[in-house]
């Protein structure tokens, strides 16, 4: 029974670390992809001239931050 417990532990360790790495690998990929898309988009819109979503977001952020100073 106790060996069984150890066995369980070993299996859990292997699968667990495997899952952690698998998940974070996928996260690295997804994050890099997201960043690439954002930067490409930013470049495009920059040429296009019109303010990009991220610029809009940045602006509203600035505004909101300014507001907060007064409200909070």
């Amino acid at each position, binding site marked *: 029974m106790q060996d069984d417990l150890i066995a369980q532990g070993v299996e859990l360790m292997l699968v667990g*670390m495997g899952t952690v790495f698998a998940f*974070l690998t*996928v*996260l690295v990929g997804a994050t890099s992809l*997201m960043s690439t898309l954002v930067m490409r988009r930013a470049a495009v819109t920059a040429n296009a001239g019109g303010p990009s979503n991220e610029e809009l977001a940045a602006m509203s*952020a600035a505004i909101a931050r300014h507001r907060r100073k007064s409200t909070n």
Partner: protein
Amino acid sequence: MELIEQIWLSSGLYQITPGRLVMIGVGLTLLYLGIVKNFEPLLLVTIGFGGILSNIPGVEIATGDGLLHLTYVVGIETGAFPLIIFMGVGALTDFGPLLANPRTLFLGAAAQFGIFATLLGALALTALGWMDFSLREAAAIGIIGGADGPTAIYVAGQLAPNLLGAIAVAAYSYMALVPLIQPPIIKALTTEKERAIGMVQLREVSKAERILFPLVLLLLVAALLPSAAPLIGMLTFGNLMRECGVVERLSHTTQNALINIVTIFLGLAVGSKLSAEEFLVPSTLGILVLGMVAFAIGTASGVLMGKLMNRLSAQPVNPIIGAAGVSAVPMAARVANRVGLEANRHNILLMHAMGPNVAGVIGSAVAAGIMITFTAG
């Protein structure tokens, strides 16, 4: 007069037990470490004081209708307090360094090895007959290696409430001791030359990336590991409030009034598990030992992963920053920075270490989800 006798019989001097006396000493020690040594004061002061209150004999404070017990039932058994704290952590965390160099996530992954090694250790102690930990208890103890307070408390509350006091105390104590625990391990595993490695300046991270990252993380967790969703969900919610820039008043309150209020009651509630009856048991000793081991292994595997990445990757990676992968934000990153300066006084590693540092928070939350999936079922 029997009223005077009544006072005597209801006094602490009459009702005190050696165990409670010891635990009051433990509480005072935690206060000393927090106040004088300035180790994790926000938690050690509140937990320590709660621990003292819980061991005052003859009055319901940490039991029955006592305030600390009610707080525990409302805030910890439900998981609400650690989750709200995690939301606050998200609102206080800047994922910029991680976004600038996502590969540091691997360091945050490697450092979680401490968690699973400790799980195995706890089961080994049981197999040896020295301790008697169930699989759930072993999993909860392992999370100490995550070096993340709210995650440890959340998992312990879910899998092993009876061990919560010891686990929380171990987690915060070792997080406080990071400046003592990590440097020797780092130096033992790296050469002077490796520690002197300089790293390339991190790139600017755009507002849009900061806003999209918490959503990407949340959706991945939802798709792959839903059991980590409560923790990661609150973390990413707090971070989205921080970065989206349109709910500054909510973000500000989350970073201040809300997290402070919850911290006070979380600390007192955790302290309520420091009653002699629950804390002075053999398993506590095992937990303290295992927790220390967990920290050491986590640090070591982070550093070794750093060495590996330095080999494999084009850009140089200073292995020191791998140690920050255990999280213990921001202490571990500061320690890495200091060790780096010792080797090369022009080498500022702080921002580079913040990447693995916050990656470690994600990593241990993911590991927590895995533990719950495998043991709670």
